[in-house]
């Protein structure tokens, strides 16, 4: 018979079975209610697309042959014979398009709202670094298809490597005699870059958690609620790319012929193609260097000490955007040119 003053009173659990074991109460910290708007979920949406890229990429890697003699046929095999290969490859391509769109919108929004100001410089730099890694994902992935366009993408790596001397030696055939460049590009695309993006995402999310979401309003809600809505929107985008992959499947060019440059690159890097039309092969080094260099310098150029510095940085960003748009249009609608000696 228990005494009236029992020191070991058992409390009724307030969490569900799974909440208790996964520590989901950790997601109940307070964030601004303004963060519930879709505009504050663009970064998270990018993470959803990256997850889909990992899953579909892992599947395709089981069938892809990274050797120069087998790459193109293995891609054809993925499309025509691997179970669900055509749709999964198209999912991968559309998810990559989704990443480009959401990362551009996310970066632009953070830039416009000056959310890189102190104390969030580190968050911004981790984000810019991730943008660079995603850019490398795009250009290395383009080479792997090893059709005419993919071969020319690989040739750009070699050309860029030759232009940059010791810094670019890794991207040349001279780096090693033991393995051609294509398998090394495949290795970068499937191991080095995924490691980098996961590490940077960890830093980025940690800093957001510690420094808070820069969103307006005094009303508060929980991050759990933000996460639920974000997951919902993320799953809807997965459904959308699933449908797009059915009706607009990714194609494949003919086996490559060396010595000619007759294709244009994927749409996200057409502005670099336009710059190459003007500057030659150096355009592919100068263009991304200037853009990412400016992005990295933004928290230094605008420390938030005056509205003038913010205005100046904003207008510079707008100017860059207009220039890139112009170069993109030139690359898209101008005639194909040979930029590199192949």
């Amino acid at each position, binding site marked *: 018979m228990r005494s009236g003053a029992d020191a070991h009173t058992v409390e009724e659990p307030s969490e569900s079975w799974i909440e208790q074991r996964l520590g989901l109460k950790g997601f109940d910290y307070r964030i601004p209610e303004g963060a519930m708007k879709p505009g504050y979920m663009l970064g998270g949406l990018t993470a959803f697309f990256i997850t889909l890229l990992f899953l579909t990429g892992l599947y395709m890697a089981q069938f892809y042959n990274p050797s120069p003699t087998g790459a193109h*046929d293995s891609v054809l095999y993925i499309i025509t014979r691997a179970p669900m290969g055509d749709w999964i490859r198209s999912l991968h391509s559309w998810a990559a398009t989704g990443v480009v769109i959401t990362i551009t919108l996310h970066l632009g929004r953070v830039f416009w709202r000056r959310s890189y100001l102190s104390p969030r410089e580190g968050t911004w730099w981790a984000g810019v670094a991730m943008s660079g890694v995603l850019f490398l994902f795009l250009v290395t992935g383009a080479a792997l298809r090893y059709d005419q366009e993919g071969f020319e993408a690989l040739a750009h790596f070699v050309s860029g490597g030759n232009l940059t001397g010791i810094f670019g030696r890794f991207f040349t055939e001279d780096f090693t005699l033991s393995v051609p460049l294509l398998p090394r590009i495949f290795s970068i695309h499937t191991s080095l870059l995924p490691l980098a993006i996961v590490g940077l995402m960890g830093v980025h999310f940690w800093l957001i958690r510690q420094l808070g979401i820069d969103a307006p309003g005094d009303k508060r809600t929980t991050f759990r609620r933000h996460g639920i*809505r974000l997951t919902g929107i993320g*799953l809807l985008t997965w459904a959308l790319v699933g449908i797009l992959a059915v009706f607009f499947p990714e194609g494949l060019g003919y086996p490559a012929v060396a010595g000619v440059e007759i294709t244009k690159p994927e749409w996200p890097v057409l502005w670099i193609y336009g710059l190459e039309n003007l500057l030659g092969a150096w355009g592919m080094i100068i263009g991304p260097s200037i853009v990412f260099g400016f992005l990295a310098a933004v928290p230094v150029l605008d420390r938030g000490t005056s509205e003038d510095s913010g205005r100046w940085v904003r207008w510079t960003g707008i100017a860059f955007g207009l220039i890139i748009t112009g170069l993109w249009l030139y690359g898209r609608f101008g005639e194909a040119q040979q930029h590199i000696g192949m």
Partner: protein
Amino acid sequence: MTNTKKALLTGVAALALAAAVHPTAVLKSASSSAEAGAEIKLLGEEFVPDEATMLVLRGPLAEYELRDVTPDADGKFQIDLAIPGNVRPGQYRVVALAADGDVSASLDITIMAASPASHEDGEDEGHDEMADMSGARSDEMPIERSRSGMGWGIIGLFVGLAGGGGATLIARS
């Protein structure tokens, strides 16, 4: 004898029989690559003596029947194997198939494009290089895509679960 023991003995006997029917055979070649239309010297060892074996060239997209070969009493053979001239360049596997269709042995091989014929009239080879280069194409290949009923089902499941789940979570938030 109990039923369990009978089942175990039957299984062991089946394994032994399978091993006896397809001993580990070996295919060897001096070269790991060949041009389409050329011949390679192929050596076979440890095959079932006097049992005909079909040699097939298997690639990721196509398969070519090559020829039959019958090993001698020692289970060996040595032949000049002709690679068909219409084989696409790429990585292939020469496969030896037993009478029941099982693979007895295999050998990886790279098939290269046939060398262009030499020009006896002394025509400039640079002109031939330009002709090769003009074969480059920037358009996409026509690819026949087909999807099984199960494939459509998987796609429908993915879209349905993602879409329905997403809408539900948004409504709950």
